[in-house]
């Protein structure tokens, strides 16, 4: 009987200790922060599917915590929530790394395409400058306007890069490069023709 009296308080204390399970707030906050970091690193754009999944994990985590919170205090168990928080955090960190890598790749591709377009436009403008002044220059006037328009468009590409619109910048730079080559071919053809004629002096018109 005495032994019974000694064990009962111990059992009660154990039950109370076990029943007072608390949600893993720090781990949940860390997971949420990791997902936020991933989002700010462009994950929603560059690894959209993976980002949706980590958001899903976060949702599952919140639901699990809510489910446990709704239970009678002695029956709560946040073990699964802890596991989900840890998974969400590690996945969010992986997704962030991947997003940063992909964004850097996209930026690199856009900057490279911009450089290629700049070189092409430079060559085109040099060809325009080679055209002789005077009467025969007239045939090149519209081509010159095109070359100037291409030069102006390069600024748009830079603005897109500055705004982190790397896909838009890359496609625009590619278009400029392509058009620049077409214009260069037109100038070369015109220059080849002009080369057969005599250069003339400029006149007032």
């Amino acid at each position: 009987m005495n032994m019974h009296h000694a064990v009962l308080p111990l059992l009660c204390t154990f039950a109370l200790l076990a029943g007072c399970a608390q949600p893993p707030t720090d781990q949940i906050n860390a997971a949420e922060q990791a997902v936020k970091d991933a989002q700010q690193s462009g994950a929603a754009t560059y690894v959209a599917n993976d980002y949706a999944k980590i958001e899903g994990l976060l949702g599952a985590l919140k639901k699990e915590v809510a489910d446990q919170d709704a239970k009678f205090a002695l029956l709560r168990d946040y073990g699964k929530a802890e596991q989900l928080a840890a998974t969400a955090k590690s996945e969010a960190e992986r997704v962030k790394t991947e997003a940063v890598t992909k964004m850097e790749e996209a930026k690199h591709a856009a900057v490279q395409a911009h450089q290629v377009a700049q070189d092409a436009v430079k060559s085109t403008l040099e060809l325009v400058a080679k055209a002789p002044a005077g009467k025969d220059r007239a045939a090149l006037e519209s081509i010159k306007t095109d070359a100037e328009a291409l030069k102006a468009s390069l600024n748009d590409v830079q603005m897109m890069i500055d705004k982190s619109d790397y896909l838009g910048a890359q496609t625009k730079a590619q278009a400029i490069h392509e058009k620049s080559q077409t214009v260069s071919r037109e100038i070369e053809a015109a220059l080849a023709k002009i080369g057969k004629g005599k250069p003339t002096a400029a006149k007032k018109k």
Partner: protein
Amino acid sequence: MIQKKLRIAAFNLWGGALVIAGTLTGCVQAVPQEVVEAVESIDRNLMQLRAAEIAPTDYGSFARQWVTLRARVEAEDDLIRWPWESSDLEFALRRLQEEGSRTVARLTAQQAALRHSAERQLAHIEDRMKLISVQVSAIDSRLVLGTKPVETDLLVKQARTFYEQGYYGQSLETSDRAAHNLAAQAATLSRELGRYASRDRIVQWQQMAKNTIEWSRTHRTSAIVVSKAERTLTLYKDGHKVLSYPVRLGFNGIREKRYQGDGATPEGRYRITHKRGQGQTQFYRALVLDYPNQEDRRRFVHERKTGHIPALRGIGGQIEIHGVENELMAQTLGCVMLDNPHMAFIFDRVDKGTPVTIVGALNEQNSVALALAHLSVTRDEI
């Protein structure tokens, strides 16, 4: 004794049957592997469809359920159940599979429709751009449009790249911007060259030509009428048409001349001030006109005062009717150019003082008016 042995044998048989039945039917996984694989396959399909980008809410809902269920599948991996025992996890996965399949089917149809729209819009814009380009070249008005044709071309190229990369939404958006640019080009041409379609202006030009012809009849001498839209030079003698020759104009000749270097060919009533024979001009033979005349100067001063002409620009001069320096010349800087045999013919039939009237057009159905009408239809279609 025999009965006891029979009881033991029967017991053993029953026990063995139970073991075999248990082995054959009892070891069922909590969730069949094929259900998990089916949902995984749907997830892959959704990723290929870029569901997270094109339908973020739908994919978000799928992903949330999938990650939750997958976590449960992993947690319950070592559980087995009786075949007759229901599994809420399997039920939830099958429900997700159905829901996911419906989303895949819907997004596939949506993407196909978007792709079709993007393809159709792109083809439409490319066709329109070619048509406008042909019309613009036909009336030598490329320079009127400035940088717009290149900007439009770049947008169309960009839209094509987006389309080829499967970004149909971006392709459509870029095509729409190109369409707006094309409409703006048509509007610019209409604004800049609308006088060619103006009945009042054409009547005015017709009157100018009529007066010149009348002068030729009255003074029993030669006169020249140049129509820019028709690209013709007509020689009159004693008020009668002698012949017409095709001409080439300035590189921006379709416009009205406003200042030096604009490449436009002037419109007005002029006279020949000098005849330059071979050796006196680089263009075979030339007839120098008295541009700028009083009317040109008055207009120039007015436009400069109103800020329509840059302060540093001069009015220009040395407008001529001349031959061809070499066979490769397609345009002039603002003059009227004839083939050399035609130039020789005209040169011998005019004198210093012969009137030369240059007009925009003499017919309402002139090439520029027709091109503008065509572009107007195109603009409405865009």
